[in-house]
């Protein structure tokens, strides 16, 4: 009922753990699989190991969740080992998220990570928290297309490009990555934001600025997915603020084929995946749907 096929990969349900959330240790992938995820995205991988920003890197207020982890990861060599190990532990499709400082680095990462045989490669060209060090490739159609092309040229694995909502118009960028050969699009990454502690007059995050995620950004994500769906023919992994089954249905109707879920694990623990899946099934039964495909893009009919 809620299973689907994308790029000839079988997903038992549409909920994919979004990048940056818990996708660190191979053994923890077992726990995630048991919690009911349909797919697992790794934390974004760079060529060299990165420590990321100093704490505080995350917090949450009543309306939104903020993070500026700074793309901490063990580097490509250790990450390849981790993905290989994880593939022994779980049957759930694995999406390897990569990010580079230059177009060429993206190409090299694509080539290297292919060796670990992830099911999908996701190129993260949209992290809002490392602007000092990295160009935001997702901010321009040309740069996004250049990254897409080189990642595609270096692998035979399906490639999705993760886009940022922190742009004036996401449509030409989506179009550009489709034309450059992307197999799919993940949208959206976090929204750029900031909080200041009024007693100390200090930004709370060490990085000052961070990415806002969680319930509050759901309407922004729905709108972006809706617009991208209108613009391109390639499938979309709709991501941003999904915390309930009803949110999931809405995002599917906006045009998503799979759903990225991350911050929801903060609100409800990782058991949220099972809960949301049950809620999707309930909604489908109550509304006369037997195949999740019938919901995808339903808002456009």
């Amino acid at each position, binding site marked *: 009922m809620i299973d689907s096929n994308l790029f000839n990969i079988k997903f038992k349900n549409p909920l994919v753990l979004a990048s940056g959330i*818990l996708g660190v240790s191979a053994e*923890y992938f077992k*726990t995630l699989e048991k919690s009911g995820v349909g797919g697992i995205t790794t934390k974004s991988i760079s060529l060299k190991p990165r420590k990321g920003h100093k704490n*505080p890197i*995350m917090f949450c207020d009543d309306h939104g969740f903020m993070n500026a982890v700074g793309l901490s990861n063990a580097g490509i060599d250790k990450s390849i080992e981790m993905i290989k190990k994880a593939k022994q532990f779980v049957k759930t499709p694995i999406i390897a998220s990569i990010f580079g400082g230059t177009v060429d680095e993206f190409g090299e990462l694509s080539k290297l990570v292919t060796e670990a045989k992830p099911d999908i490669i996701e190129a993260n060209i949209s992290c809002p928290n490392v602007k000092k060090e990295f160009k935001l490739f997702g901010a321009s159609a040309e740069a996004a297309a250049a990254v897409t092309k080189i990642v595609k040229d270096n692998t035979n694995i399906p490639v999705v490009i993760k886009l940022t909502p922190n742009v004036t118009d996401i449509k030409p960028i989506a179009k550009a990555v489709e034309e450059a050969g992307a197999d799919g699009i993940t949208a959206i990454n976090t929204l750029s934001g900031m909080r200041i502690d009024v*007693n*100390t007059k200090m930004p709370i995050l060490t990085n000052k600025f961070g990415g806002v995620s969680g319930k509050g950004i759901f309407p922004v994500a729905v709108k972006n997915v809706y617009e991208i769906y209108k613009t391109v023919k390639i499938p979309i992994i709709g991501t941003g603020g999904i915390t*309930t089954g009803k949110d999931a249905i809405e995002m599917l109707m906006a045009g998503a084929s799979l759903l990225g879920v991350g911050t*929801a694990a903060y609100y409800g623990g990782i058991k949220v995946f099972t809960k949301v899946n049950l809620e999707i099934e309930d909604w489908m039964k109550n509304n006369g749907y037997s195949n999740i495909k019938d919901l995808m893009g339903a808002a456009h009919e």
Partner: protein
Amino acid sequence: MNDGHIKKKLPRQDIPLTTKVVEVIKHNECFVTVWLEGDIKIKPGQFIMVWFPNVEEKPFTVTCIKENKFSFTALKRGPFTEALFELKVGDLLGWRGPYGNTFNLDKNFKNVCLVAGGIGMAALSLLYQNIKNRTINQVNFKMNLLYGAKNCNGLIFKDIIPEICNNNTCFCTDDGSEGDKLFSTELLEKYLNENQNEEGDNNIDVVYTCGPEIMMKKVVELCEQYNVGCEVSLERYMGCGFGICGGCSINHKLVCMDGPVFNLEELKNLPDFGNHICKCKEEKNESFTKKL
């Protein structure tokens, strides 16, 4: 179908709340206790994330709670804990939490033992005080504390919770400068032996422990050998404290959410338990640890 949002399980503060430092006690050149203004609801075993603006944010257990103030105690290990020594009354620190699970104190327990190694006593401090308060009128309740450190300067909880200085506490130091010249694990072995009856059964209900991981590993081995329950409080580097960043994973579990307290059964499935060495200790090493 529930279209409402999922409720958080515990009432907790997830954005740092800045509050005034009301007292800074430098016990010696290695240990400091900081008292913060405000009320906190926290159970023994849980921890908070302390934000030092312009420095960093780190996990700590709360060591004492009084009216409108609470404290945490730190061992000087790196830039963060060094900065704590420079704090003045009126400075602002932030905190969020509480996070993590709690020690399990079964109502039927009649005989409990706490084994602390060095600054590990911080994680057992609230537990000790809670048990003491709860059992003050129970004549047949027994609580023993086995508290070890490298030398007498490391036994600072004698100052922080003076009530631990009683006949049911045994102190030990690696150099014999106070108490027995033994490791706390050797004290525990002696204690477990003494509490064994002729049939080999033990009347100790549970051992709670916190200290260097290598010490806790030995405590766990002893508890298994003597068939006594055990709960350990683990430490890992933490980013978020609430189960999202994945930084504190140990095998298929997270120390911040599934722990920090783990029992014997859980530890059996965590082969990485016992292999952890604090990174800052590795880097800083000698200069601080020698003094302890």
